[in-house]
């Protein structure tokens, strides 16, 4: 009798306890800002162009080889609007193959690629997850707004800006970002010959 009541007590307590689960499609758990969703390309708002120069460093270091990029001359450079001599022409990531490792973000010297919070991209067709440049930039724009994104690495394309940023970094020694990381000569300069060699 007594144990029966005790059992009922346990049930009652269980019923009153707060829920630990959430019903997924209706409810979404909050995502951390660090959450690594699919990679997306960021947009340089002042210059109105992508940050990506198509240097192919990320393409070389992607462990699943799911990306491809092509570079072109930047018209805005000749017009004097931008400091980027080269700019991305086409970019494709096969998100079906991407393992969300974040290596591309790590190796990019221009902050041009970021892991967005986007994580729900199920598609009906096998190749529908091969996303192109406009889609990636759209994802990036959404992400930039969502997390109030700011460029964290000095821009290697412009020696001047780089020097300024380096000086700023020197001042703020406490910053988490390691200075050595950003001034790696080997990775910031990639000639087409080099990339060709690696791909072969």
């Amino acid at each position, binding site marked *: 009798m007594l144990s029966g009541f005790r059992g009922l007590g346990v049930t009652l307590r269980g019923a009153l306890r707060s829920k*630990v689960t959430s019903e997924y499609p209706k409810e979404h758990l909050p*995502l*951390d800002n*660090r*959450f*690594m969703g699919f990679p997306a390309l960021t947009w340089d708002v002042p210059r109105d162009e992508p940050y990506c120069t198509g240097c192919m460093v990320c393409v070389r*270091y992607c*462990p699943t080889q799911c990306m491809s990029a092509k570079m072109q001359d930047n018209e805005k450079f000749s017009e004097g609007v931008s400091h980027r001599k080269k700019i991305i022409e086409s970019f494709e990531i096969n998100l079906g193959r991407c*393992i*969300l*490792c*974040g*290596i591309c973000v*790590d*190796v990019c010297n221009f902050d041009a690629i970021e*892991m967005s919070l986007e994580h729900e991209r199920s598609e009906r067709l096998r190749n529908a997850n091969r996303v192109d440049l406009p889609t990636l930039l759209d994802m990036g724009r959404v992400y930039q707004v969502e997390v109030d994104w700011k460029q964290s690495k000095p821009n290697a394309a412009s020696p001047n800006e780089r020097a300024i940023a380096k000086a700023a970094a020197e001042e703020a020694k*406490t910053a*988490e970002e*390691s*200075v*050595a*990381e950003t001034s*790696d000569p*080997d*990775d910031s300069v990639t000639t087409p010959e080099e990339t060709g060699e690696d791909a072969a």
Partner: protein
Amino acid sequence: MTENVAPTNLGSTIIQVPSPEPGTVDMMVNMGPQHPATHGVFRMELRVDGEQIQDLVPHIGYLHRGSEKLCEHESYSQIITLFDRLDYVSNFNNELVIVSAVEKLMDVAPPPRAELIRIIMCEFNRIASHLLFYGTFAIDMGAITPLLYNFRDREKIQALFESVSGARMMHNYFRVGGVKEDVADEFESRSLALCDELEHGIDETDRLLTENEIFLERTSGIGVISGEDALDWGLSGPVLRASGVPYDVRVDEPYSRYDELDFGIPVGSAGDCWDRFYVRILEARESVSIIRQAIALMEPGDTMSKIRRIARPPAGEVYAHCENPRGDLGVYIVSEGGERPYRLKVRPPSFCNLQALRDLTVGHYIADAVVILGTLDIVLGEVDR
């Protein structure tokens, strides 16, 4: 015995009734690869006499991805992602072994803060892995409640992982020479709060299972292995310690900053399934205490040493090993210089622990095979690589 038979005068031949011999034959039972109790794709061929197991042949390889070979084509930073996928319930521990091997080869030391972050992450991962073990182990015996409780707690750990590394499982957070980025500001308070919750969760599992009579009947005295045999089989981790051998890489060959931390090694006495279960309960509690100590030691500082971002270790050979939740995980690298290893060999604890399965199971019942396999706590991603 015709001479004892009384002679008859009927003149017919005598037909002797044969003495009764059981006409049964051993039966082959196939378990797996799609069996819920095999924790992955693992197949066992059992030869049973009735319910009793006479012989057992394990078949592995269903999850073989050729990780070791793949490593030869990947740069060291890419290999970390492959190690995430070996033992996919203790990713941080796996990352630690590969980065410490490359660090050893390059002779660099990560900053002290990075070392502590690594330790904290690894110990949280150990608890998460053990929580998964309690749950699935209980399910193997027909108890479903512990799994739900354990997954509730494991979920909290994974939420913490997400706030640190950005991913819940495949983190790719450790780097050669440090960690990807520093932890967020509220990390310490959050971890300490989580420690309390986990302690409570572990106690709950302990109360639910440990002294339950059915649980005891199913586990104590089942699948006994002596310390000597366990060493001969090359077992490691909780499976070895349950047999009374106090071997733990964290203590015997301290790596990272484990020598600064004070923690005990739980050791069993009987080497049966119950010991293997309880050693893990105690170990999770020790991990909680390690995390608390490590957080107390944390000081602000760099989290990445100033080395080239793309690791290029010199030519040479190196072996490094760390204590995984499953045992002694080792990696052997032969480098010819350059971005990629010439050869990489993994010593997977799950694979080595699985070797003892036949010895442990023969003579027990089919239902016990499931329990024994459960206490070995293998992860097929690591067994098959």
